[in-house]
């Protein structure tokens, strides 16, 4: 830039230089003579050096003119007498041109070098700037991240839904989050250090010392085993005076620790409530059990009384009507015998009802035994009993051998007796009666079946079948009291089994029952 500005000055100086040289050579001509070009070679050299190529050429031309005029003889004339002089002019002009040309090349090279240098410098600078910029951006980013992370951490700490306290090792500095403040009411100002916390949270000195002991032990243990601070429940007094049960646990962070606080007051209260409810419940269960026991005993006593006291009057009715018939039969006429017969009949029926009720009630009371039983044997005994009673009846029996079961012997005898008696009873009008006792697999369960080909019944009434005192036949068709199947069902249910019937009027009936395995109920579908 500076060079460019000074350029006209340099050009002017370059053009002035031949004149100055001419003046100097003129002044000291006696010294330089006869070397007319002596000072002009350097002049042209310098002119082209400082003025550039054009200035150098012009200076060469001016120098040639000046030398020809002033110094080449004849002096002060442009005449060239000697061809030798003409050559020297030509040589000078060539030299001048060469100087100018060389200088120009030199100059250009110089300029290019300096331009390149400048470019390198600029590039270097830019690179430097860029690097610094990038470093600064990185630095900024790191700082931003740090700030954000710090903010996040602070937010996390402050807004976490669990109360925290961060305590540095020296206990001199403690920090509490918002939930902590909300839970306990104490602020950072209330408790700048951990030492402020203890007397506030545990105003009772004795309790406090216990807490301190247990807490310090827990922290020491956690630090030693590098594990969490074992959680403990403490009763903490809040700023408003309420006492809350808090489960305190924490982690050690190097020499510091972070304590967490869980409010278990409600849980404790609920637990206490549950405990009390349980206690109440237990008491109520005890009361109910006692009541039930009393009711059972009452029922027992009732059944006992029924068996004794209800029978006596019946026996009297039966007995005296019989005695009347025996002792005064001759004096009684016509209808009187029928009436006496009816009394006897009614009292007998009543007796059967009482016995049925007693059996039913007995089957629902008392312990249920589970002994291995031979049902084939049982069915055979019932069969023999019936055959003995009515030896004239012709009836085919099919009793499967080897039927075993687990259950209460006395109760299952009632079951077998009732089912087989029924089969016996309802086949009384069948031409070739058949009673089958067998087992079969149904839905994976073992079913015991008692089947007959007797009167059967309408399945539409089957839901009444197992209800006490419900009968599907008239007394004059098939006598009965309607308590047998009710008893049977109750016994089967007590064993955890199911019973169902399948029948068709005039075709017979099948009764199937299962015996639950140790009380587990299994379903039979008919």
């Amino acid at each position, binding site marked *: 830039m500076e060079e460019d500005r000074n350029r006209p000055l340099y050009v002017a100086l370059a053009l002035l230089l031949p004149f100055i040289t001419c003046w100097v050579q003129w002044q000291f001509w006696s010294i330089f003579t006869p070397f007319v070009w002596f000072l002009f070679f350097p002049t042209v050299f310098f002119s082209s050096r400082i003025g550039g190529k054009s200035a150098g050429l012009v200076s060469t031309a001016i120098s040639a003119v000046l030398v020809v005029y002033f110094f080449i003889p004849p002096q002060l004339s442009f005449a060239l007498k000697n061809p030798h002089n003409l050559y020297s002019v030509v040589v000078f002009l060539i030299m001048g041109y060469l100087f100018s040309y060389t200088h120009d090349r030199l100059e250009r090279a110089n300029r290019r070098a300096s331009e390149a240098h400048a470019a390198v410098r600029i590039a270097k600078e830019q690179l430097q700037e860029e690097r610094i910029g990038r470093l600064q951006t990185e630095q900024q980013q790191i700082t931003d991240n740090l700030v954000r992370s710090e903010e996040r951490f602070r937010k996390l700490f402050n807004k976490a839904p669990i109360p925290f306290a961060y305590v540095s090792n020296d206990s001199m500095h403690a920090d509490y989050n918002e939930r902590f403040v909300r839970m306990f009411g104490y602020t950072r100002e209330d408790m700048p250090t951990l030492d402020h916390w203890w007397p506030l949270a545990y105003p009772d000195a004795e309790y406090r010392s216990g807490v301190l002991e247990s807490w310090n032990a827990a922290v020491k243990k956690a630090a030693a085993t590098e594990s969490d601070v074992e959680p403990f429940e403490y009763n903490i007094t809040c700023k408003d005076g309420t006492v809350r049960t808090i489960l305190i646990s924490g982690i050690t962070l190097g020499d510091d620790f972070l304590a967490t606080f869980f409010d278990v007051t409600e849980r404790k209260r609920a637990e206490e409530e549950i405990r009390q409810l349980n206690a109440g419940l237990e008491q109520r269960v005890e009361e109910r059990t006692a009541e039930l026991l009393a009711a059972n005993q009452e029922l027992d006593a009732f059944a*006992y009384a029924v068996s004794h006291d209800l029978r006596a009057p019946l*026996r009297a009715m039966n007995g*005296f009507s*019989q005695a009347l018939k025996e002792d005064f039969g001759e004096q009684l006429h016509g209808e009187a015998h029928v009436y006496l017969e009816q009394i006897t009949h009614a009292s007998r029926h009543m007796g059967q009802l009482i016995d049925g009720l007693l059996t039913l009630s007995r089957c629902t009371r008392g312990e249920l035994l589970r002994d291995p039983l031979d049902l084939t044997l049982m069915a055979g005994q019932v069969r023999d009993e019936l055959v003995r009673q009515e030896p004239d009846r012709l009836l085919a029996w099919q009793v499967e051998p080897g039927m075993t079961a687990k259950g209460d012997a006395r109760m299952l005898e009632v079951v077998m007796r009732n089912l087989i008696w029924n089969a016996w009873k309802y086949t009384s009008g069948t031409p070739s009666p058949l009673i089958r006792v067998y087992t079969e697999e149904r839905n994976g369960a073992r079913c015991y079946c008692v089947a007959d080909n007797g009167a059967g019944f309408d399945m539409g009434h089957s839901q009444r079948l197992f209800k006490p005192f419900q009968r599907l036949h008239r007394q004059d068709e098939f006598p009965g009291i309607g308590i047998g199947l009710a008893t049977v069902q109750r016994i089967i249910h007590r064993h955890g089994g199911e019973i169902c019937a399948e029948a068709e009027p005039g075709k017979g009936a099948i009764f199937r029952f299962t015996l639950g395995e140790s009380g587990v109920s299994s379903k039979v579908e008919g």
Partner: protein
Amino acid sequence: MNEVKSILLVEDNPQDEMLVLRSLRKVNLANQVDVVRDGQQALDYLFREGEFSGRSGSEYPAVVLLDINLPRVSGLEVLERLRGDTRTRLLPVVILTSSDEERDRLKSYEIGANSFVRKPLDFTEFAEAVASLGVYWMAINIPPKG
């Protein structure tokens, strides 16, 4: 000592008493029956205490027909007392009751009843049962003390 055999009937129900007596009458045993109506009376009769301290007749009956459900002292308690006393330890006692409860039956035998008979509801059966009891214990059975 006069060795006329007798039956002691312990029965609080007058109708049952009548029916028992009627049944025994059929086998000509009615006039050898003494009747008491509760457990205490039975004990007094057998041990000749209280109202029976001066009773005449045989020292001990050939058999006691004992109901379980009795006023004052129950039948089973009477039996226990009899078995606890050397004088009546071996006295034949037949429980004659309406009950067919197993526990009554077992308990009776446990404490030393010689027989357990449930009063049948049907009078014909009842009469038969009582008559055979009377005949068996009075005529067939040989008592411990002849």
